[in-house]
C-alpha cells in the first residue's frame, strides 16, 4: 500500500466539532476528547428536550390559567371546573390559547368563564377558592 501520512484530516474533523462546542464552559470547549463527548451529550439532550418542551409548556399553561382563574374577584372558579365546562360547552380553545388570553386579554377570559358559568349548574366544591 502507498504510504499515507495522516496530516490534518483528524484536525479538520475536530474543528467542526469544536465550533459546535465553542460556547461551552471550561474544559468542555477546550480539550479535544472532552469536546467530542460534550457534543454528543448536547445533541442527545436537545433531541430529548424537544419532546419535553411540549410537556413543560402544557404544565406552564395550566399553572397560568389556574392562577388567573383562582386569583380574580370577578369570576369565582378553579382550573378543573373551567376545563370540565370548556369541554362540556364544546369550546375548542386549547390551553395554550386560553393561557395567552388570560395574560394578555384578561377580560376576554372572564367573559368566557362567565359565559360558561351562566349556562350550567354550579358544581359543588369544597369551599376553598
Amino acid at each position, binding site marked *: 500500500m502507498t504510504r499515507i501520512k495522516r496530516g490534518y484530516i483528524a484536525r479538520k474533523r475536530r474543528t467542526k466539532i469544536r465550533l459546535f462546542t465553542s460556547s461551552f464552559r471550561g474544559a468542555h470547549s477546550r480539550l479535544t476528547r472532552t469536546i467530542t463527548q460534550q457534543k*454528543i451529550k448536547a*445533541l*442527545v439532550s*436537545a*433531541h430529548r428536550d*424537544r419532546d419535553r*418542551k*411540549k410537556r413543560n*409548556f*402544557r404544565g406552564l399553561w395550566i399553572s397560568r390559567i389556574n392562577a388567573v382563574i383562582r386569583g380574580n374577584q*370577578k*369570576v369565582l372558579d378553579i382550573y378543573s371546573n373551567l376545563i370540565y365546562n370548556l*369541554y362540556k*360547552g*364544546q*369550546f*375548542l*380553545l*386549547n*390551553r*395554550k*390559547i386560553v393561557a*395567552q*388570553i388570560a*395574560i*394578555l*386579554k384578561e*377580560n*376576554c377570559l*372572564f*367573559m*368566557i368563564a*362567565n*359565559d360558561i358559568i*351562566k349556562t350550567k349548574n354550579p358544581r359543588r366544591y369544597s369551599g376553598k377558592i
Partner: protein
Amino acid sequence: MATATVSTLCATFGTHCAISHNPKPLFSQPFNLNRFHSNSYKLTFSPRSPLSPLSPLPKAADSALVQTQPGSLDPQPAQLVPVQPPSWEPGLFAVIMIGSRQYIVHPGRWIVVQRLKGANVNDKIALHKVLLVGTDTSCYIGKPIVTNAVVYATVEEQGLDPKVIVFKYKKKKHYRRNIGHRQPHTRLRINSIMGYENYPKVTMDDIKSDDSES
C-alpha cells in the same frame, strides 16, 4: 416592522414563550379532539387570483376601506388618491385553527403554520375555523366556532424551518445516528377578519350585571 412590534409585546415573557400575540409561534400543542365528536368543520382553502388594487374588496361593517378609483389614476398620475390602511376595531384579534394547531391572529401580521399543500405564493386563503373573535371591549365566543366568521390570508412564502439535528445515541452499544431535518412551513399574511358581527357578543357589562344581581 411587524417583528419590532412583536418583540415589544412578548417582552414580558421568557425566551421561549414567543407564542403571544406574536405572529411567529415557536412551537405547537397538538389538540386532542377525542373527547367529543363535533361536526367536522373543514378548513376551506380557496386560492383566488391575486388581489388587484382596482377590484372591490369584501366589505365589513366595521372596517372602512378606501377603494382606489380607476379614473383617478389616469388623468393626473402625480396626484394619487392616498389609500388608507383599513381601520379595524381596536384590539381586534381572532383565534383560528390551522392544521389542528391554534393561533392568535391579528389583521396585518403574519404567522407561520404547517405547510399547506397545494398553496402557491400569493394565493388568497379563506380560513373558516374561527374559534374566538375579540376586541378591546367585547368577545365573540365560538361554540365551537364563530359561524360565518372568515379570516382572509395571503400565502407569503412556502419555506423550511431551520435545521434541527436528530441525534440518536445509545451509550456503550456503539449506536449513533445523525439525521438533519427541516420541517416545511407556510407563512401567511393575515389580511382581514370578517363576518363575526352577527354572532352573539359578550362584553364586560354582562359580568358586572351578573355580579350586581347575585
